[in-house]
């Protein structure tokens, strides 16, 4: 079990006063302090862990976020920022002595500039809504996490989220041009804008992926991209994981960067096909979804090349999408993989990244590790960039199974680091991987990160139970 720190009793004692004060800072309907309503905010997508927060505020303006933060700073109250609550790492799980600042009411597109290819949005808008807003103009917002229907841009920035198409278009940090950031003392700060790069240090780059520990982002300027004329996926089925892994290396080694290159193993295919009827091959051990885009002439050429390269690795089945309906079904299946798994079993989803050359070895070791714990695993992941998502299946009603699943997950993440990769590729550290940080980082590395953190939040009020192991935390004094 992951430790969540015991609440500060002096804060709990002052709860009535804090509630009284905070309620005045936000409009009617933007404040929650009653038990049943607070329960909605007790967890995120890491549902095994729950804590009912002290109160929830749902500000409608940056100024309200600023006044709530200033109040919390002056009164030593902890703050947990929340977008849509879809974090798989527990990034939005609150604690009893913390106020949740939910950005869900700040969900508008403020402006779109097609000439500069940018959109200015509020942080609570969903990822998909940004693409929908610029879709009629032929544009889209590139990072596309599987949860894009629900997850918010603010949450994406906090976790530096990726998605299936970041092989070509990059992750959030590569598509972010500016933010409005509110610091713990209420200071409102503009970083970046419609232009590229910044004078001075790259604070925008530091903020992105900082998991709500440096401040709260209320608005963002994101890059929008003109959609390709066409895109078409192909399904390649293989008899072994090794053959599929070798095909991935061969495609990229040949100088072809597909817009997406996804991997699913037999278990994942079976689970997903049963739910989404995506037309996946059921007689293979591993399947690749390879998508290319461009003009239809370019797509034909690229797919032919890819299939030629893959044929050296003896695919059992090759199926090219014949049109928009089939393409949509193929992606619907992939994006529903986690949800479909959730319908048949409890699971935890790992998120380590490995050098792609290690794919066959890591898949083999994954099988062995999971077998040793007598559990099952479904592998679904972004093969092009080595970002693995083993879903470890377990039954929460069987005593000890969740602990076994967590222990197996820990071994898998250690394996990722051991082969030259990292603990998390796109989900973030949250509480889930917090205590494994020393597997990847030395204490010196962590101290340097904490010194940077302390510049923004020297008293550990912002999302404090996350990212850094709870022991040996470093607090430095601000210099004037």
């Amino acid at each position, binding site marked *: 079990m992951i430790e969540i720190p015991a609440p500060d009793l002096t804060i709990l004692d002052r709860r009535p006063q804090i509630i009284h004060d905070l309620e005045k800072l936000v409009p009617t309907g933007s404040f929650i302090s009653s038990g049943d309503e607070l329960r909605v905010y007790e967890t995120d997508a890491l549902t095994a862990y729950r804590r009912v927060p002290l109160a929830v505020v749902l500000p409608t303006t940056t100024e309200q976020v600023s006044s709530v933060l200033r109040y919390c700073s002056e009164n030593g109250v902890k703050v947990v920022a929340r977008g849509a609550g879809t974090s798989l790492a527990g990034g939005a799980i609150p604690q009893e002595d913390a106020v949740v600042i939910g950005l869900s009411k700040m969900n508008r597109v403020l402006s779109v500039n*097609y*000439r*500069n*290819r940018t959109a200015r949005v509020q942080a609570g808008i969903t990822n998909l809504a940004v693409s929908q807003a610029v879709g009629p103009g*032929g544009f889209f917002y590139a990072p596309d996490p599987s949860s894009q229907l629900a997850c918010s841009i603010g949450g994406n920035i906090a976790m*530096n989220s*990726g998605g299936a198409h970041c*092989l070509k278009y*990059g*992750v959030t940090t*590569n598509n972010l041009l500016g933010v409005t950031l509110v*610091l713990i003392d209420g200071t409102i*700060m*503009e970083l970046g*804008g*419609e*232009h*590229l*790069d*910044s*004078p*001075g*240090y*790259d*604070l925008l*780059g*530091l903020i*992105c*992926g*900082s998991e709500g520990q440096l401040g709260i982002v209320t608005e963002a300027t994101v890059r929008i991209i*003109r959609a390709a004329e066409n895109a078409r996926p192909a399904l390649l089925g293989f008899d072994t994981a090794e053959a599929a892994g070798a095909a991935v*290396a*061969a495609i990229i*080694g040949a*100088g072809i*960067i597909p817009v997406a290159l996804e991997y699913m193993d037999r278990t994942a295919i079976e689970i997903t096909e049963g739910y989404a009827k995506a037309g996946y091959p059921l007689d293979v051990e591993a399947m690749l979804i390879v998508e290319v885009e*461009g*003009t239809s002439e*370019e797509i034909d050429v690229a797919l032919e090349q890819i299939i030629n390269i893959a044929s050296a690795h003896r695919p059992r089945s090759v199926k090219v999408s014949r049109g928009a309906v089939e393409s949509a079904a193929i992606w619907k299946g992939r994006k529903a993989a986690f949800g479909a798994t959730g319908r048949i079993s409890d699971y935890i989803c790992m998120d380590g990244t490995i050098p*792609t*050359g290690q794919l066959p070895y890591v898949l083999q070791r994954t099988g062995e590790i999971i077998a040793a714990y007598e559990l099952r695993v479904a592998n679904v992941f972004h093969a092009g*960039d*080595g*970002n693995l998502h083993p879903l470890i299946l377990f039954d929460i009603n069987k005593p000890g199974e969740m602990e076994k699943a967590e222990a197996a997950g820990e071994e898998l993440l250690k394996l990722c680091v051991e082969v*030259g990769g*990292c*603990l998390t*590729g796109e989900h973030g550290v949250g509480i889930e*991987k917090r205590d494994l*940080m020393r597997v990847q*980082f030395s204490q*010196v*590395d962590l*101290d*340097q*990160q904490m010194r*940077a*953190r302390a*510049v923004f939040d020297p008293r550990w009020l912002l999302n404090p139970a996350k990212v850094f192991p709870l022991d040996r935390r470093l607090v430095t004094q601000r*210099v004037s």
Partner: protein
Amino acid sequence: MFGSIRHEPQDEVEVAEIIRRAADRFSPLRIEGGGTKSSAGRPIRADTVLSSANLRGVTMHEPSELVIQARSGTPVDVVQALLRENGQDLPFEPPSLSSLYGARGRPTIGALAAMNLSGPRRISVGAARDCLLGVRFVNGRGEIVKSGGRVMKNVTGLDLVKLVAGSWGTLGFITEVTFKVLPSARASGTLCIEGLSDADAIEILTRAMGSSYDVSGAAHIPEQDMDVPAQTLVRIEGSSASVEVRANRLRALLGEGRTVLSFDEERSAAIWSGIRELAPLRVRSDEVVWRLSVPPDRAAEVTAFVGSKLEGARWYFDWSGGLIWLALPSRTETEYNSVRVVIQKVGGHATLVRASEDVRRSVPVFQELPPALMAITAQLKNAFDPAGILNPSLMYERI
């Protein structure tokens, strides 16, 4: 420099020892790679040089994983030669700026990261900082720190890689970098429309960038004299079949009755390496050079203002108008400030890229930051380099 001390450590442990000793004595260090940009930034007072000259060599290269790792003092050309043998390259097309600074040495891969230097392709594949996957550096306490790694996707912990990229050696001495690489384009070509005004050219460039044809270069060079008309240039790269298809579609999209010239691969390559290295500016030795980063749709407004206020100003645009290279005859301080005034109006920032030491001492080289941002910046410097010994005051007075 006569009488100066020069350290050329063999490994990062030695780097750490030198920095620790310097920190104990509050003795400032000038960080140096190939020494080709020693006249960039604010003048600093440091008699002791800490050089990456002996930290050389590619430490890892996995072509099928699109990744290369090298010690910081490795010359960029060495890295590029190795990549090109495998049909790959650094995606962001790094400029050397050697002709601008009149330097003879070889730029290093560590300095590329430290200065976040990106060329014309930055608008399609991102900046150096976007391709920088990992760094090892020694901070101002003499501690060896790593951040990031060698994989494409990594959100583990705070992203110090981004912070170190573009910090000009003021946060740490970079000892090793890991870059994402991409396959080189098999073919490329450039479309050119002649005779456009700045405003019309930016319109064409933004239209090209807003198309779905993966434009990888978008520049405009205004008329230089009667013989050379203004050129608006759009580059496409990829497989040869794909380049041809997209060139045809772009010609239809941008032409509208205008003549659209096509430049072949060889000419295209020469044009873009020129744009990367400021060739169109034909900078004279007595001129100062500015680099302006602005919203593309305000770019023509900026140059119209500069042209009306500052006699003898010359410029060209890259990044679809988002990057303006500007040459000016040497000026009074007030006149320099008008460059910053217009930037404040449209958003963005201006960097004084080349000027005499006197000018760089009196005119801020980097755009001044709002007070709250400057305070954070100073505290971050302190969090990495509490003794203030690494390239002190190279970026700002206190940084």
